[in-house]
């Protein structure tokens, strides 16, 4: 996938004007947000588990080389193969070579964000294979030739009417007048169509939610069961995973699993959590004969040395984007890269460059809701602020903005000058708005006044009022 993050302002504006998208985004609140809140309330230990999970992942990242070595040895001991890829290109080369060696034609895929990141489907298609996405959401967007708009609900941006149209256009072997309006009918149709894909596949590719160093197991967490059919039926199972997914033990995996589904979909536990260790054993009646793990770096090892290192604790639950007012307004596609939302704004500049992703850390109100729900306690706003600082220091932002910030900084660092300026500004605004009580236009604030009025200030600046001893009771509690 090619990042389009640099066009964020344009893509975001288009998203705001997209009525279908806006309708689809409305499902987020009753869906993700309320379900999560209800489930978390049922587990009093939730916050203590977050602390433990954070410590586990910090320890693992600090010893990442050691745990990766251990994981590799355990996969090999179980009869599997480990392949290393420093770049996206290396990763797709490996998977293509493995599919060739397996004599594959059809390749089924479970949902994998790393596969999206390295553009695996494009590489497989270019090499003459037929990759088939089997997660319902991924299947829908594959038919539409789109990218996922959410890391756990790839088709979140679509309404059922759009999906109905997509299936009518794609499944031409079925009667054109079949009833296909309800989610039930759409799900059943996808189930029937994809069943043949599962049974005919030569290679199954999945991602991994975790890599367990203790046992050499890869773990997938799903609800549909497509990942399990993908990895159980074909002769070859290929796991594509980024290197930071490793955790020490089955117990550590379990601790983090207690957070994952609750944070993601608001389930207590996902329907299917599957641990895969090596290929089928000599006396196993089914399962793949070959097991390959492709470990992808693609910038993560270097990211460990930056202020964004903590973003590597991410377990891709999606809670941050589910609760983000900006994501909720523009959806995932506007971000222009695989991981959208607050975690995307924290990770993407480190992985695709500040030059390309510089708008994303600015696409935040810094309300902190993302941090308050992050199960791994990633300081998302701190990391975004770090990227903003980088953007400024490296002169990537427009000169006008840097000049404006420079002026503001000069004034703000000189209290007497600052007070004088604010006093004059407040007085001017109060005078202009003296009749209506609000301002219809104000130079420099057009972004606000184009859509609504700006209330006129009353009673002088905050500093003046404070010095006069005004200490009115706060209007309401601030919730932090």
């Amino acid at each position, binding site marked *: 996938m090619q990042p389009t993050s640099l066009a964020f302002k344009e893509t975001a504006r288009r998203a705001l004007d997209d009525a279908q998208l806006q309708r689809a985004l409305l499902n987020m609140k009753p869906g993700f947000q309320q379900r999560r809140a209800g489930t978390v309330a049922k587990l009093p*230990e939730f916050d203590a588990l977050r602390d433990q999970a954070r410590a586990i992942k910090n320890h693992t990242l*600090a*010893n990442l080389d050691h745990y990766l070595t251990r994981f590799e040895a355990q996969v090999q001991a179980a009869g599997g193969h480990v392949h*290393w890829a420093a770049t996206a290109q*290396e990763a797709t080369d490996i998977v293509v070579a493995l599919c060739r060696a397996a004599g594959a034609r059809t390749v089924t895929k479970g949902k994998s964000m790393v596969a999206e990141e390295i553009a695996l489907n494009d590489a497989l298609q270019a090499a003459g294979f037929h990759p088939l996405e089997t997660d319902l959401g991924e299947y829908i967007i594959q038919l539409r030739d789109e990218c996922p708009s959410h890391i756990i609900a790839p088709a979140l941006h679509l309404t059922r009417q759009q999906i109905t149209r997509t299936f009518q256009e794609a499944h031409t072997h079925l009667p054109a007048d079949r009833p296909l309006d309800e989610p039930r009918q759409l799900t059943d149709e996808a189930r029937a169509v994809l069943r043949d894909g599962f049974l005919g596949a030569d290679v199954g590719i999945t991602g991994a939610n975790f890599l367990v160093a203790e046992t*050499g197991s890869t773990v997938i967490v799903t609800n549909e069961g497509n990942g399990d059919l993908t990895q159980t039926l074909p002769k070859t199972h290929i796991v594509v995973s980024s290197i930071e997914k490793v955790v020490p033990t089955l117990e550590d995996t379990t601790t983090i699993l207690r957070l994952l589904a609750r944070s993601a979909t608001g389930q207590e536990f*996902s329907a299917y959590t599957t641990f895969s260790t090596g*290929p089928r054993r000599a006396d196993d009646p089914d399962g793949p004969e070959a097991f390959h793990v492709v470990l992808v770096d693609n910038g993560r*090892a270097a990211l460990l040395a930056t202020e964004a*290192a903590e973003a590597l604790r991410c377990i891709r639950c999606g809670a941050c984007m589910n609760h983000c007012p900006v994501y909720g307004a523009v959806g995932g596609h506007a971000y222009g890269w695989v991981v959208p939302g607050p975690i995307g704004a924290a990770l993407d500049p480190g992985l695709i460059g500040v030059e390309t992703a510089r708008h994303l850390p600015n696409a935040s109100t810094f309300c902190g809701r993302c941090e308050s729900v992050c199960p791994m306690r990633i300081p998302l706003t701190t990391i975004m602020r770090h990227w903003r600082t980088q953007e400024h220091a490296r002169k990537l932002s427009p000169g006008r903005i840097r000049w404006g910030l420079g002026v503001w900084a000069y004034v703000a660092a000189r209290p007497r000058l600052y007070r004088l300026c604010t006093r004059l500004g407040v007085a001017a605004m109060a005078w202009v708005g003296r009749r209506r009580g609000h301002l219809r236009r104000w130079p420099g604030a057009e972004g606000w006044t184009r859509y609504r009025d700006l209330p006129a200030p009353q009673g002088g600046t905050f500093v003046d009022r404070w010095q006069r001893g005004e200490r009115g009771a706060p209007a309401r509690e601030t919730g932090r």
Partner: protein
Amino acid sequence: MSLADASAAARARIFATLGKSLSAGRLAAATDGATADPAAADARIAARPRGIRPARVDRDPAGLIALFVEQAVAVQATVARLAKPDAVPQAVADYLAEHNQPARLRCAPQRWLTGLDWAATALEVSQGPAAADDTASLTGAVVGVAETGTLMLASGPAGPTTLNFLPDTHIVALRAEQVVASYEDGWDRIRAAGPMPRTVNMITGPSRTGDIEQVIQLGAHGPRRLHILLIGEAAAGSAR
């Protein structure tokens, strides 16, 4: 360059970068002083410390069974209580009839299940891994986890993984003493049984999806129905 050589070269590059990043000290500052300590890492794998166990599982065996049933039902599994394994064939036949399912069953090759008196039912029973046209399966499980109503199943000669996913109906026979408090108890039993199996499935209710407008639909790709036959009663008085 061969696949193996390219992979080895990439590995060397990744580890060189990792070495540089980890020694930069920046990470420790970001992560409350978590530092590189191979001995501590090895010790962690050897000791396998458990995390917090939710208080909801602080119950006696009968209480755990009640919680397991409650949690399984909450995720749209169904549970039938049976006094003895002998009752399994009739319970399976009744369940399939009730749901208008074909009277055919693919059974996991476990003696305690295959050896039951299936002839007394009208079911056509075979054993082994599932094929595309198998409509119902019967398997065992390693444990049932009370915490969330989760079943843990291990692959092996007696546990074909396809039985858990291909058929429309998955029936699991679980003995009361197999109901444990938490997932960690399940790991202990799996470790005690030998090396890590190729596949361990944690199954919590039937297959589902919310990919279309976040409306939950059961039976996305895996089983549409998950039915648990819970056999026997809790051992009296042995509090955990």
